[in-house]
């Protein structure tokens, strides 16, 4: 029986096997999705107003015209967000940024951006989640807790499912390992294969692991038991198809990616290892890929009369800190909430346009607010899964809210 499956855009996993029962464009029942996905489909908080200028209700045309005029009058506008937008929306946003000489960035500049860039540039070996389901025997979660952030990852792709070359089940054929500073929910599942390290201890742990892999005595300043490290090294050496899922915990603890490159190099001399970044939002990967295809960079860029400038000074954090941007178009993100207060407060001094399906701290402080359809629930399109696979989706229910894509096109036209 062919079933009508929907895609969940609740996280970077983009689960494509969700059944939904709905009536009169209200989702009643959701099958197979995790609780995060269900909340995303059923309870996504809606703002009351559709379009606001200076907190007063207006019509769509007035709102888009006001947005266009703010962007036109700005010397260096910032476009930020887009992590939950479709590829189609992101491409229009890039066009828009080009047209108005904007600074363009997303959350990856303070999350996993450098790692994603290295992967897009083929500097690290990667694979798909489907490869992992079919083949992986050693799965490492490093500085990340998918049980909280990507709830279905272990059950749908990595540890528990049967795959074409993994027919006998997880107890016999797979080993899941967690390396983290705290005993997370995922670490709990990993049982004896949880390796707890002190905060900022990752680089040393990698060095020690490399020593262990090369047959030397693994030493750390925090006296991690060499026996346990050697045990880990042996499991990794014996892997036929290994994968490391890298989370923010690891990236924040490293000064640069060098230790990770070294580890992947030796792992691939001794066995066979792949790396996948634990991208949280449903289409941050898409933003990074789409921007890279257009400019050669994954984030933190500024367009200037047809040329592209890139550097940390064009990241959302640095450009707000240095007050180099004088207006902001925020799409599907809440920088006032997620950025450090000292930086976010500079946003209160410039006119902000917030395009979002829910009311956020940022939207409340915006000059223009536009309430859009929820990508993946009320608007269709495509997104890139955390492993780089493109997933297309149709809307689950209908809405009379315009999609982000339509709004950005209208703003472009009004310029």
């Amino acid at each position, binding site marked *: 029986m062919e079933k009508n*499956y929907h895609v969940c855009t609740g996280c970077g996993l983009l689960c494509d096997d969700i059944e939904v029962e709905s009536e009169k464009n209200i989702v009643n029942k959701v*099958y197979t*999705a995790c609780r995060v996905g269900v*909340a995303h489909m059923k309870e996504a908080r809606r703002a009351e107003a559709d379009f606001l200028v200076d907190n007063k209700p207006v019509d769509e045309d007035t709102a888009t015209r006001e947005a266009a005029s703010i962007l036109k009058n700005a010397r260096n506008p910032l476009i930020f967000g887009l992590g939950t937008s479709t590829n189609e929306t992101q491409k229009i946003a890039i066009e828009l940024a080009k047209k108005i000489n904007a600074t363009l960035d997303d959350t990856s500049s303070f999350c996993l951006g450098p790692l994603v860039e290295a992967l897009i540039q083929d500097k690290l070996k990667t694979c798909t989640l489907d490869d992992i389901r079919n083949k992986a025997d050693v799965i490492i979660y490093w500085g990340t807790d998918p049980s909280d952030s990507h709830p279905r990852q272990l059950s*749908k*792709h990595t540890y528990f*499912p*049967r795959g074409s070359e993994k027919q006998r089940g997880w107890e016999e054929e797979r080993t899941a390992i967690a390396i983290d500073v705290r005993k997370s929910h*995922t670490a709990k599942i990993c049982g004896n294969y949880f390796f707890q390290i002190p905060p900022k201890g990752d680089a040393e742990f990698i060095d020690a692991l490399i020593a262990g892999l090369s047959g030397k005595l693994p030493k750390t300043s925090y006296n991690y038991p060499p026996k346990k490290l050697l045990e880990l090294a042996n499991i990794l050496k014996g892997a036929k198809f290994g994968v490391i899922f890298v989370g923010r915990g690891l990236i924040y603890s490293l000064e640069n990616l060098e230790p990770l490159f070294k580890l992947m190099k030796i792992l691939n001399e001794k066995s066979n290892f792949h790396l996948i970044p634990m991208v949280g939002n449903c289409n941050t990967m898409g933003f990074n890929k789409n921007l890279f295809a257009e400019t050669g960079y994954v984030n933190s860029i500024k367009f200037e009369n047809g040329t592209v400038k890139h550097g940390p000074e064009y990241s959302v954090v640095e450009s707000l800190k240095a007050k180099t941007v004088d207006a902001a178009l925020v799409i599907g993100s809440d920088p006032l909430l997620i950025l450090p207060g000292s930086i976010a407060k500079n946003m209160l001094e410039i006119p902000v346009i917030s395009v979002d399906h829910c009311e956020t701290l940022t939207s409340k402080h915006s000059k223009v607010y536009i309430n859009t359809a929820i990508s993946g629930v009320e608007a269709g399109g495509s997104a890139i899964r955390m492993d780089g696979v493109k997933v297309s989706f149709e809307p689950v229910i209908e809405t009379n809210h315009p999609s982000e894509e339509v709004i950005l096109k209208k703003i472009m036209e009004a310029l």
Partner: protein
Amino acid sequence: MTNAMELYQMLPKTNCKKCGKTSCMAFAVALMAHELTPEDCPPLKDEPKYKENYEKISEIFKPSEGATETGLIVHEDLCFGCGNCVVACPPNVANDPYGVGSGNAPRNVNKLVLTVENGIVKAQNLGECRRFGKNKILCNGCIVTCPVEAIEFV
């Protein structure tokens, strides 16, 4: 929950074999496995001197509210629908290898013990559960794979 040793301490310890087991310790183990119930021990049930212990043990094995025929309860407030238990449950895998057994949505829900609905695990078809019926075994597939201890057997 109690262990077999603690139960044993509350039994008559006479090894009278009236329950059909060879010793009171064996009866304690059978209690733990939900194979027998406290009433299956005649002296415990009938003799006044064991009354207090009988009540205590009965209290332990009282079918709890919300428990299913196999004693499975889902703590709905804890479960977040990760599906680990669904995919790891042996009868689920055997009955739907390419659906839930491969991590996907169910292809055939008729014989599935565990599925996820509205983000929370739901138990049904308990006749398929390995803890059900005469040949039951102490399967713990759904317990050890849950990150938050949302499934419990009472």
